């Protein structure tokens, strides 16, 4: 069983929900990313999505677009992100870590070579935002060979047929997008979300985590009532950017993430 699945089992036994945190590798710097992910783990994050930046992130709102741009300007490449992951893995041997990216950078690197590199660096699985099951045959096969989870996405627009396809192909967890739209901080939790998640859970026993627009402990608490986990990205990326020169950066991030984690229990 994968590290990710094992961790979800442990959480289930504890009657606790997962907090998944997203950071962009290389923003504000490679060294900072290593220290930040270690801090996320200490603060209680159950899984970290490590963003491999792409020049044209069409599922992301302005914050993660800008973060990706900064990371690229800092010289991030696929192998450099894997080097960051390797360093993180030395410090946090048990934390499930899933690189999150778009298809072109890993396709260009070579899917098989990339998957091998990622596994060696300590990745547990992947989210490839613009890769749907229909186009993922080769990637799925390679990931399975390497023992890497493949997390596919569902959305409020997904039909019953698509829910069946996506839940069947996902391993580790199923990523449910909370609303039609791109990543970014929102004030509210959509009222339809509970039904969307229930509908997916009626179809699968795999954990279902909800992301997009979640930034506050009260959002986390509300969603944790019906989902298996929540993903927080933009607000964390914003906080890191705002406090990047503050010597207390790690402490500030710790406090924020700990407050989110507390809402999952």
């Amino acid at each position: 069983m994968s590290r990710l699945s094992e961790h979800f089992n442990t959480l289930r036994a504890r009657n606790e929900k997962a907090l998944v945190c997203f950071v962009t590798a290389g923003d504000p710097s490679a060294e900072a990313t290593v220290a930040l992910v270690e801090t996320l783990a200490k603060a209680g994050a159950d899984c970290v999505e490590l963003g491999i930046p792409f020049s044209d992130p069409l599922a992301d709102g302005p914050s993660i677009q800008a973060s990706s741009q900064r990371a690229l300007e800092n010289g991030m490449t696929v192998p450099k992100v894997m080097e960051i992951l390797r360093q993180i893995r030395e410090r946090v041997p048990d934390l499930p870590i899933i690189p999150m990216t778009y298809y072109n950078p890993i396709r260009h690197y070579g899917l098989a070579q990339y998957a091998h590199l990622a596994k060696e660096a300590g990745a547990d699985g992947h989210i490839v935002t613009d890769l749907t099951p229909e186009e993922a045959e080769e990637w799925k096969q390679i990931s399975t060979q390497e023992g890497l989870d493949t997390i596919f996405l569902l959305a409020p627009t997904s039909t019953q047929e698509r829910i069946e396809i996506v839940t069947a192909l996902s391993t580790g967890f199923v990523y449910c997008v909370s609303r039609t739209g791109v990543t970014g901080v929102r004030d509210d939790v959509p009222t339809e979300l509970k039904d969307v998640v229930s509908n997916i859970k009626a179809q699968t026993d795999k954990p279902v985590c909800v992301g997009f627009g979640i930034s506050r402990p009260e959002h986390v608490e509300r969603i944790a009532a019906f989902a298996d986990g929540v993903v927080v990205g933009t607000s964390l990326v914003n906080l890191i950017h705002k406090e990047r020169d503050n010597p207390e950066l790690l402490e500030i991030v710790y406090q924020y993430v700990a407050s989110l984690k507390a809402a999952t229990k």
Partner: protein
Amino acid sequence: MTIANTEYAALPDARGRFGVYGGRFVPETLIPALDELTQAYAAAQKDPAFQQELDAHLQDYVGRATPLYFAERLSEEYGAKIYLKREDLCHTGAHKINNALGQILLAKRMGKPRIIAETGAGQHGVATATVCARFGIECEVYMGEEDTHRQALNVARMKLLGAKVIPVTSGTATLKDATNEAIRDWVTNVRNTHYIIGSVVGPHPYPMIVRDFQSVIGREARAQILQKENRLPDAVIACVGGGSNAMGIFHPFLHDTTVNLIGVEAAGEGLDSGKHCAPLTAGAMGVLHGSASYLMQDTDGQVAITHSISAGLDYPGVGPEHAWMKDAGRAKYVSVTDSEALEGLQKLAHREGIICALETAHAVAYLEKMRPQLTPNTILIINCSGRGDKDMSTVVRSLELA
């Protein structure tokens, strides 16, 4: 060449593939909308009323059929018979309206009350704003901020037509980024919005739909040349950015294997300078904006910054069917530079009294490179895809005419 045996009408396949190209690489949220569009288009194709309505508007509103004009003085210059397919005479001044009109009729069938579009040179934006005004549908157009400056006339036209023009400042602030932003809007508002993509790019079914609506160019041109010359041309030449005018004129000639199809990409300041947008000539396979095709990218798979004097060609990707036709050897893709295009534009203006768009000027400019092979019996068709009014400020600045 395996092409003669290939059944073109069968492409793309059910997954939207042209060989290894095409497909659907988009966030999951959009998949149901793409399925809905695929079904609506299939139903429309079977509905004679849809085709009648489209044909009626193409005739009386767009002004089709456009002439196939024998360019006598240009022909004298090059020692060949050169015809121009006058898409610049379409309502709104370019071929873009053929597709915008078809898609707005689809949007009506799907009951979508809101339209979005991306635009580079502004011609697709103007075409979309025009059909939205005609059918009374709300319209928002994403346009790179840099393009809003170099194509200011078209921004004014869109506004006058009642569309909202949204300048895009992210990335390089050109067509690529306008397309990103339009896709983000669509992901957000997919339930009530139809996205009218302006070229043969994007996720399936767009490359197919846009090709089909633009193929009216090639169907007319083929019939017209047979009537005038009683034979098919030796070559058909068109500029290629995303590739819609080229695909539109090429496609009805695909089975005529004696007809050379030549797509002209923008070499910008030269292929060696790195400042160009010629993915078919100098790029490699990649995935951008929902489909696999040739792409301008760096060694890490990041999309490269492009350059062309022509905003409409300033795009790092190209339609997947062009990628397939290149690999299959059915079409040849070449490139000309900014300065060569400017010369082509002047030559057409001086010789024929036609000021074409900077995009079109790339196709005209390729005549210079064909010159050694041309004979008095050579028959060429150039797709005169658009008129040049929108480019006057760029041309004036570049040629120091002011």
